[in-house]
Structure formats: structure tokens, C-alpha cells
């Protein structure tokens, strides 16, 4: 990230997102601080999908008519855009799934079950999202594979010594780790961790759900074996996600779901598989959603990922500063230099759900709960936290509204202003 960044015109960007221009409640401007759960979509993305349905829809692949050709071009064109966006070596390495969760399950079902033997070790971490825990729990139960968890330090970082000890001492076959924590904001040093995993003979899967939307991710520079992410967190539609995998790995993997498109030839006796990426895309895919994801990638690319990151950092740093002034407020996660995009906190004497509800009443949308990271919350010693998360359309005004609403909540609970 050494390129110079240019400041973005946030007012113009906000104008691209129709949903932002509303009152959450009468007289209360919507202040949307829940993008880590799912981001909003610019008009360009919404229109790309409507336009697709109004002009170009048909089922893709092998249709010999003009609509099917257009639909196929939209769908495969999106694959090429995603390929360029994460700098994959080939569009064949881009598998369209429903979401990050399905991408990770695909690795577990296909690569995992074909490759792993009882006693093999998969390394995860204590800060993982349930989507990067539960598929491995299911796998472990069915195969006798062992799971190890990198602990989270008091600073909210991965304990890399423990990681290295696992790599040194255990038959680690795969490491699967989030790039950026959806709760702590921690940006994990995946590039170094991948190099260390490879040196130990293990593969490395990156849960990019919270990184790909916010910073430039280059799978070849990282040397990631797999990368999973969701369109809906990166200005794209719901219903589509991505699994990137190195071609040789994907080639060697058995298919996951069976059905149309993913076969080469079917007889009553059995089937042979289609080439990549189709081998992993059974049935009619999310065609309009791919068109929408392509438009999202164009949108983010035009803004520039480094510029987006720089802007979010300004907003998040400001939020950390202002929040830390609030009496009785505890912030979670590492210091500003090692984090990105979210501010997670608790308030003394007000449960996170009550916080979220009181903030909502002021028009401020945050998320409260365990954020699909129950083990991390156990580690933090709290059942629930409140989280404000930022995207390119958020401003310092939004942070001010958040802080003001928190003071209001304190007043309602009789805790002073």
C-alpha cells in the first residue's frame, strides 16, 4: 500500500447510494454503521442488475441465441473482472458461490474430504467467524481431523508464536484464517503467515470477507491457496460469493455439488466432470448477481482500493478517538495501526442490545451481539458487544452522530450525559 492515495469525494459517493438518503425515523437521518454485516449498494450496481433483466436475461452457456450469448457474456465477463480485481492468474480460478460461507464449505467438503486423513491438523484461530469454524467442526467430526486454534492476545492480535509452534510440531495440512477480523478490526499478517505455512508444507485459506471489500487483495502477491469472500459486503448484491483457488489445487479436487453445467458427460452409470470453473458451479448460477458483482468491482476499482482504505482509516481513527472519550465505554481490538474498519465496544451498565436499540431510535444503525464470533466473545469475556463499522460512504459526521447517540443512551439509563 505504498501508492499515494487521493482523497475521495464522499458527498458524490454518498449520492450514488440511494438508501442512505432517508430518515430512519421521523426527523432522524439514517446513519448506517453496519457495513461489516452487509454493505449498501450504489445505483450503478442496482441498475446493472435491472438492466440485465430488462435486456439480456437467459440461461447461460450453450444457448444458441442472442439473449443467452449476452447473459453468458455478462456472467463470464464478471468472472474476468473479479479475476483482475484480486489478481488471480486465470478466470478459471474464480468459482462463484453464494457467499463466503459456502466458499469455505466447498473447501472443506471437496478438498478436505478428498485429502485429509485422521490425525491431520487444520489450524484456525480463536477470532474466526463461525463460517470459518463450523465447516471445520463438521469436517473434523466426520473425518477425525484435528483442529488447533491460534489464541488471541490481550492486544487483540493472533499469537504468532503459538502459530509457529503448531506448524513446527503438528502435521498441519491447512491453515484457514480471517484476513481482517469482523469484531476487532485486526488486520492479520496473512502474507507472512502464508509463507510460514508453505514452508511447513501446509496450504493456506484466507477468509477475505472483511478484507476484499476494504483493501487491495492480490492473491498472487499473498501466495494464498484459497480466498473466500462475499459480494454483499463489497457494494455488490446478495446471493453471490467467490472462492478463489489456485488452479492446480482446484483441478485436483473432486466436485462438490452435482448437477447441470458441472459435468462433461452423464450416463446412467456415472458422470465425468467439466473443466474449471464449471466443475464447481452446479445448476443455473446467480447470473444477474454476477453482473451486479462485476459492476461493484468496477465501482470500487474506479474509486481505487487504496483510496477507499485511506478514507476508511480517517473515519475509523476518528471514531476510535471520539469513542474512547466516552465514560464507561470499553473498546476492543488492537491499536489503530493494526486495524481496519470497525469499532467494537461495550458500555458499562447498558447491555449491547439496549445500546443498539437506543442508537437505532436516533437513526444510528449498529450491530449488537456476538457477530458470529462466539468463541472470540468468550475470550473477551463478554456475551455481546456493539459494533459500528465503516465503509467508503461513511463520514466523520456519522461518527459524531454515533457518539451523540451513545451519550443519549447514557442519559436514558440515568448514567449522565
Amino acid at each position: 500500500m505504498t501508492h499515494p492515495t487521493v482523497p475521495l469525494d464522499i458527498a458524490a459517493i454518498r449520492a450514488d447510494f440511494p438508501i442512505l438518503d432517508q430518515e430512519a425515523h421521523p426527523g432522524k437521518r439514517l446513519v448506517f454503521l453496519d457495513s461489516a454485516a452487509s454493505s449498501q449498494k450504489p445505483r450503478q450496481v442496482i441498475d446493472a442488475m435491472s438492466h440485465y433483466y430488462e435486456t439480456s436475461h437467459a440461461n447461460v452457456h450453450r444457448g444458441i441465441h442472442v439473449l443467452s450469448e449476452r447473459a453468458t457474456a455478462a456472467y463470464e465477463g464478471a468472472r474476468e473482472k473479479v479475476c483482475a480485481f484480486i489478481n488471480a492468474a486465470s478466470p478459471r480460478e474464480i468459482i462463484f458461490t453464494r457467499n463466503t460461507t459456502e466458499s469455505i464449505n466447498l473447501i472443506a467438503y471437496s478438498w478436505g474430504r478428498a485429502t485429509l486423513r485422521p490425525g491431520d491438523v487444520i489450524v484456525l484461530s480463536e477470532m474466526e467467524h463461525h463460517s470459518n469454524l463450523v465447516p471445520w467442526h463438521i469436517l473434523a467430526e466426520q473425518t477425525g481431523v484435528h483442529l488447533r486454534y491460534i489464541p488471541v492476545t490481550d492486544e487483540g492480535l493472533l499469537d504468532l508464536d503459538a502459530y509457529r509452534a503448531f506448524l513446527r510440531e503438528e502435521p498441519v495440512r491447512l491453515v484457514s484464517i480471517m484476513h481482517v477480523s469482523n469484531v476487532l478490526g485486526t488486520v492479520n499478517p496473512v502474507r507472512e503467515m502464508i509463507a510460514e505455512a508453505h514452508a511447513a508444507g501446509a496450504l493456506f485459506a484466507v477468509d477475505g470477507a472483511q478484507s476484499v471489500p476494504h483493501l487491495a487483495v492480490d492473491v498472487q502477491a499473498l501466495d494464498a491457496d484459497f480466498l473466500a469472500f462475499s459480494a454483499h459486503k463489497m457494494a455488490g448484491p446478495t446471493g453471490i460469493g467467490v472462492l478463489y483457488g489456485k488452479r492446480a489445487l482446484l483441478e485436483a479436487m473432486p466436485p462438490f455439488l452435482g448437477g447441470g453445467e458441472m459435468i462433461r458427460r452423464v450416463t446412467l452409470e456415472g458422470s465425468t466432470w467439466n473443466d474449471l470453473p464449471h466443475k464447481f458451479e452446479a445448476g443455473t448460477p446467480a447470473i444477474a448477481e454476477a453482473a451486479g458483482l462485476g459492476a461493484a468491482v468496477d465501482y470500487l476499482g474506479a474509486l481505487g482500493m487504496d483510496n477507499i482504505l485511506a478514507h476508511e482509516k480517517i473515519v475509523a481513527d476518528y471514531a476510535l478517538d471520539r469513542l474512547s472519550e466516552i465514560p464507561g465505554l470499553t473498546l476492543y481490538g488492537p491499536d489503530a495501526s493494526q486495524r481496519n474498519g470497525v469499532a467494537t465496544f461495550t458500555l458499562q451498565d447498558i447491555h449491547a442490545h439496549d445500546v443498539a436499540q437506543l442508537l437505532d431510535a436516533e437513526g444510528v444503525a449498529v450491530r449488537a451481539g456476538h457477530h458470529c464470533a462466539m468463541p472470540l466473545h468468550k475470550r473477551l469475556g463478554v456475551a455481546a458487544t456493539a459494533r459500528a463499522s465503516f465503509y467508503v460512504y461513511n463520514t466523520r459526521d456519522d461518527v459524531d452522530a454515533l457518539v451523540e447517540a451513545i451519550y443519549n443512551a447514557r442519559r436514558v439509563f440515568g448514567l449522565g450525559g
Partner: protein
Amino acid sequence: MDLYMENIIDHGQHPRNFGEPLDPADIEYEDDNPFCGDHLHLTLQLDEQNRVKAVSWQGEGCTISQASASMLGEEIIGKTLDELRNLDRQDVLDLLGIPLSPTRLKCALLSLKVLKAGVYAHLGWSVQEDE
């Protein structure tokens, strides 16, 4: 601020009948709402006519879940098991007296769920579908 009327905050901050479990207890049950981390543990003592003589709650969670337990606990003292059986969501919502979104409904109804499951277990019944 309809949602956090003074009496709800008061019940949330000073819940009635909260404390150590009754011992001996005629009815005991606990459950939680793992999505929220809300947790409640209920003990009840009955008199000879099977009326609620004493109530004790223990728990933690949001104001809505704790206040609803506090209010419900006050409400049921002196009631028969039959009357407890007939309590429903609306009774709890009336006690709270505020509109709730589906997410918060789960918080509000945890106390009722624990109460009814305890009563039903005492009577040897199973809890009805979607009750």
C-alpha cells in the same frame, strides 16, 4: 423514547425477586437466548393450593429480558398453575407496554419461555409447538 419507559429501566436496573435460587423449589428451570447471551434461571415455591408462593430469578442480559422477568415474577405471585399455563405472549407484552421488533421479542419472551417450560415440566407435559 417510548421503548425505554422509566418503569422498564427501573425493572431492568432493580429487578424484583432476583437473587439466589429458592431451596427447596417446587419448580425450577433455566434457559437462554444464545444469540443475545440473555440467560434466566427461575425457581418457584407453591403453596398447598398450588399457588405461587415465592419466585426467584437469576440471570443476565439486556434490559428487556431482565425487566420482563422482573415484571412477570411480580405478576405471577398468588397465581395457580392453571393460570400460569394460560399466560401468553400478549400478557408479557402488555406488562412491558412497548412495541418490540421481532429480534427484541425474543429477549422479552425468554422469561415466559422459562416459566412455562418449568410449569410444564412440573406437570409432566411437553411444551407446545411455537408456543
